[in-house]
């Protein structure tokens, strides 16, 4: 019996010839990522448990990316970044993306891919549920808590249960107006917010192979919204081109064996997919955008690890170009590289930044997680009242973007932009 890609990666990391779903194995981590919200607590546990003078297991493999609460007046948030800064200095961590300096990057889940820290076949842990994003590179990646992260920080190892695989095969050509976000919203709608609990969500098929890395990132990013332990897409030519351009570190690509055992397999024809939304207050509250034209919105938001990449802004700009938004439209590039792209990338001779300005969007904020998860009260774009927000982010349980009275609708950058033009949920094909 063969192994799935997830089983193969975990077998290699466990130093075993094979593992099976359900096995509990100690694995060697390749990367541990933490940020300003969970970093200080992780560091606190690490120092308490391993000693004040303890060293991390491998300074090259601990990535520290403050990104959540950066542009706020909140003193504790600044204190927390300072704790990260002091730890990075003490441990001489080469990969500390320091706020307020040229090394600052922004949202961890876009930073790690861009800086070459995501490599096929590797095991990545992170103190953030959307760590599953890195599965887009054919890696095993999953979110963990502070205590587990402190254990990894000290030992490089963690006990994991090998997840059984739910396979999603998407074949065919994606219709105009349909993005990776629509694929994953449909999958979550079909299996529910706990339909993937303890499972590996594996995506394959000709549609997936045809997607650029930015779209694969969006899909794997939201595996956690179905409860998944990891999302994964086997590396191919597209992956290798992206990774080779950003790192010269060695890695080994793996893929599922044809006879690997999976728990279930769902097949989709790309041609049958449409622009979707997840209505309040759950990521599995699926509806077709075209069926929701009577749902009014009063804010649009483009940003986050899910929907704040350069390609997401290009998609939004393609709709907004030459038109005017009629609701407050907030833009938060995920990283400094994406922010630079807003000034660099052009459509029809105009930069993305010019297109957004002429469309009447609010001036883009500096890169961070911003209002995706609400955050401190002064966070850019935070919902502080009973706003109805359409957003390219990943989660819409009550209170996610701030106020409990607010409602969040999840959508692709195309659908979000189209809805910003009309003030109601709008199928982007109306503007294509």
């Amino acid at each position: 019996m063969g192994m799935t890609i997830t089983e193969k990666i975990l077998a290699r990391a466990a130093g075993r010839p094979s593992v099976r779903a359900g096995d509990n194995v100690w694995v060697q981590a390749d990367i541990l990522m933490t940020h300003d919200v969970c970093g200080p607590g992780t560091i606190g546990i690490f120092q308490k448990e391993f000693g004040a003078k303890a060293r991390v297991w491998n300074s090259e493999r601990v990535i520290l990316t403050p990104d959540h609460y950066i542009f706020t007046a909140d003193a504790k948030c600044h204190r927390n970044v300072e704790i990260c800064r002091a730890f990075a200095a003490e441990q001489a961590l080469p990969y500390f993306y320091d706020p307020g300096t040229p090394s600052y990057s922004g949202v961890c889940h876009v930073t790690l891919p861009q800086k070459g820290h995501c490599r096929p076949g590797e095991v990545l842990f992170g103190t953030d549920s959307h760590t599953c994003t890195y599965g887009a590179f054919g890696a095993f990646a999953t979110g963990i808590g502070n205590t587990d992260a402190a254990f990894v920080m000290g030992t490089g190892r963690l006990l994991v249960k090998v997840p059984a695989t739910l396979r999603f095969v998407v074949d065919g050509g994606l219709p105009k107006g349909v993005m990776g976000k629509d694929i994953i919203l449909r999958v979550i709608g079909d299996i529910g917010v706990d339909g993937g609990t303890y499972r590996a969500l594996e995506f394959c098929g000709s549609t997936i192979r045809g997607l650029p890395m930015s779209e694969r990132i969006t899909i794997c990013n939201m595996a956690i919204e179905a409860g998944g332990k990891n999302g994964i897409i086997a590396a191919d030519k597209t992956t290798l081109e992206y990774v080779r351009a950003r790192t010269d570190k060695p890695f080994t690509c793996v893929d599922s064996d044809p006879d690997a055992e999976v728990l279930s397999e769902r097949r989709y024809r790309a041609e049958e997919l449409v622009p979707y939304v997840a209505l309040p207050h759950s990521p599995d509250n699926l509806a077709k955008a075209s069926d929701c034209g009577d749902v009014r919105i009063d804010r649009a938001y483009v940003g986050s690890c899910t929907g704040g990449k350069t390609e997401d802004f290009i998609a939004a700009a393609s709709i907004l170009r030459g038109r005017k938004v009629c609701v407050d439209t907030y833009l938060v590039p995920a990283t400094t590289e994406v922010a630079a792209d807003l000034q660099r990338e052009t459509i029809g001779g105009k930069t993305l930044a010019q297109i957004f300005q002429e469309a009447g969007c609010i001036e883009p904020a500096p890169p961070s997680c911003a209002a995706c998860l609400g955050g401190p009260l002064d966070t850019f774009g935070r919902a502080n009242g009973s706003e109805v927000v359409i957003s390219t982010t990943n989660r819409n349980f009550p209170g996610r973007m701030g106020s409990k009275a607010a409602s969040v609708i999840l959508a692709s950058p195309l659908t979000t932009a189209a809805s910003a033009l009309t003030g109601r949920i709008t199928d982007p094909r109306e503007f294509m």
Partner: protein
Amino acid sequence: MAQRIRGNVFVVGDNIDTDQIIPAQYLNLVPTIPEEYAKLGTYALSGLPDGYPRLVPEGAAKSPYVIVVAGRNFGCGSSREHAPVSLGAAGVRAVVAESYARIFFRNCMATGELYPVESPKRLCDLLKTGDEVTLDLEAGTLTTAAGATYPLQPLGDAKDVIDAGGLFAFARKSGMIR
């Protein structure tokens, strides 16, 4: 470790995510700093929609409820360890739910803050906030004041880790680490 927990329950429904357990605006508090640990407790479950009572009453440091009873997928969403920590800091000692999100369950065990017990029966429809129950972790049962007893799923090895006080304490006690 006391294996029987007797007290009042706080009842919630399905898919109570980590933003409802501890809203993101309080994640500036660091669980390993003792006064901030205590502060996290006062905000536990404060993200629930209006209409729910407060788990920890205004001005109080601890919850009058020691067991949270929930439906499916309790603790879904973020990996923030602040979620089980806030419940533990509030004085909650166990959650009894139909099912859990993976990371929340693991964080309960790793921190040793509280017991995440699974109930085959949907107890959140049978109990109401304030009801007194006895949770017997050894026998794996929950018994109401009226005497009705419901079997619970065994916690297995996870119980030993929580009994010891979490991952590190367990690993030391069992000789896995020094």
